[in-house]
């Protein structure tokens, strides 16, 4: 009975549509939450949704690369990256709450509705040339919207950790866009993940110097007379 469900493509498409809905919900939470811990959880959930979408797409399409992508995403984005950020967070006790936003959640949610519309209009202009199924078109739109919303997070928050999560969300969006529009060879995906890991590594290490309140940084600012507030 389950297998007959799984074999039915219309059912699978519906499930993928529900997953799209959840992805957008996670994006909305990323935009409006103020707590760093919940941000990480939301990111992990979002990546998990990506994994599920990849698996269900595999069931529809049968493209083996998708399973590999799902496995890779599971390991790197659902497990490793949140684990790593948590480790760093524990070591230096970054303050839990985000203190400032440039753009209040109200306004960012409104702007993101505009961004989703923009993505839709833009892509529908192009996909008259390509012929994509409705599901794939929706996937492309959601992917592009997720990227734009990630960019919004990156530019409207002050703490570096949230900017990093914004970047990771953008990456998720591009991944979603990629698996629906084209099928890239797997080696590219691996290299992208490696690049992502190094980036997150570097950024979090740098963030230690920025977000925490280590005293020696204040002292260093005194010795490096050059930077001591005489210029902006």
């Amino acid at each position, binding site marked *: 009975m389950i297998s007959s469900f799984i074999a039915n493509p219309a059912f699978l498409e519906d499930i993928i549509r529900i997953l799209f809905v959840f992805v957008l919900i996670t994006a909305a939470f990323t935009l409006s939450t103020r707590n760093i811990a919940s941000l990480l959880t939301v990111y992990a959930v979002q990546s998990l949704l990506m994994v599920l979408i990849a698996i269900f797409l595999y069931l529809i399409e049968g493209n083996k690369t998708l399973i590999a992508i799902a496995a890779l995403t599971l390991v790197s984005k659902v497990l490793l990256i949140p684990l790593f950020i948590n480790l760093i967070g524990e070591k230096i006790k970054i303050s839990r709450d985000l203190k400032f936003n440039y753009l209040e959640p109200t306004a960012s949610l409104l702007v993101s509705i505009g961004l989703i519309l923009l993505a839709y209009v833009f892509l529908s202009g192009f996909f008259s040339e390509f012929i994509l199924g409705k599901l794939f078109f929706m996937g492309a739109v959601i992917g592009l919207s997720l990227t734009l919303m990630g960019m919004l997070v*990156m530019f409207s928050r002050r703490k570096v950790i949230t900017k990093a999560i914004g*970047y990771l969300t953008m990456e998720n969006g591009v991944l979603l866009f990629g698996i629906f529009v084209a099928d890239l060879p797997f080696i590219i995906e691996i290299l992208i993940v490696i690049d992502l890991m*190094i980036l997150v590594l*570097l950024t979090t290490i740098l963030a230690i110097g920025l977000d925490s309140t280590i005293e020696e940084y204040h002292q260093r600012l005194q010795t*490096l007379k*050059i930077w001591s507030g005489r210029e902006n």
Partner: protein
Amino acid sequence: MIILGYLAMGAIALALIALSKSHRTMNAFFILHTLAFLAIGVYVLLTTAVPIFETGSEYFYVDHLSLYEVLIAALLFFLASVYANGYVESLVQAQELHRNNLKIFYMIFSILLTTVTLAFFSDNLALFWIFAELTTIFSAALVAILSAKENIDAAIKYIFIASGAMLFSFIGLIFLYTLSGEVLGSGTLNWIILAKNAALLSPKILTASFIFLFIGFAAKSGIFPFHTWLPDAHSKAPSAVSAILSGVLLNIGIYGILRMYAIVRQTQAEPMVSKFLLGFGLLTVAVAVLNMLLQKNLKMLIAFSSVEHMGILLLGIGIGTPLALFWTLFYILAHSLTKASLFFSAGILHRQYESNLIQDIKDVFSLQPIAGWGFVIGTFAIVGMPPFPIFSAKFFILLEAFGFSKSLVFAVLLLLVIASAAFARFLIEAFTQSSKDEGTDGMEALLPYTVRGGMKFPILSILFVILALGVFFPEPLEKLLNTIVYELGYM
């Protein structure tokens, strides 16, 4: 074979640096690394029949353009490494750089060279993308190595703006892949195949993918409106690194735009894309120049000047005629060298005065004659005065642009005049200050900073080379540039 040679050299150098104990050995190995790359490059240029595919898998491709860029990069790294010998040592002594970080510094510097080389040699756009991202990350690490809060700020801004824009670039990649898949049967991201089949690609989607790709490459090269990271990153980094940032890394973005434009040029999308590039080029020059007028920080002035020159490069690419391309390529070489010399001189001045601001620079010519005069001559060069090479490059590019649109040329000329004025204002204000002007509460006479060995050599040699380039245009170079123009499909 060639790529393996580069990779092997890179790996050996990295290992040697990792094992070194003293600054001198690390620096020596790094210099050897750059020399090895230079040697391989020249050897390949002179002996093997380029263009050739590499490693049999069509992922790496050596043609004259990539060789040219790699040679420029290796040369600049060589000069920077020689300069770094003295400069980094004095940074360590002034305690701006920790001795523990020295090894990491040199290792990342070495990896950066290898990554840049591999980026230029990539045939596959996705591979190019990955290497370009890696160069962003490594160079940001170099910016942040000084561990001051502003450096980390600048590095993080750099990473996020460049990487975020590169993600949009990736969307452009996906567009291109699907587009080529529709037309050619199976999707491809290789420059060569795309260039060969350019005429078959649908112009509308090609334009869209070009614009997305442009976003990423423009951010990497500091084109408006993605240039906001550039002044901070380039001015706060140590001067040896700034020279590399301005002279090599900005070239990566321009390289990508060049290759893409060579593909677009063969389709009907060219007029619109050309206007697009010209527009952005003009805007970049305008924004950079207007900012230059306000600068009180020496290295920020030089950084904004980099933005300005990138704008002119965009103009050169956008014009699209073979002659414009020829001079754009020459411009890349000239700009990299001249900018490096400026940063090197600025570095010496920074060590002398412990500051980059106008008000702190006094008695330049008596304290640091080489750096002072080097800076003045470098300014003449960078602003485009004859007999320096930037003059000829700008002249011919603008000449070609005249055929396009006269008002564009006049606007650019006006902006260039303002740029020269900005430099002049800074120089006159800074270099004519004397400690005797200060009242009775003036500081004690500044002790001249002893310029260590290796810091003078790069400045002097660059000045000599650009003078020579400006006066005599060497024929091998001309032949090389002509071959590149031919290979890109312009004639």
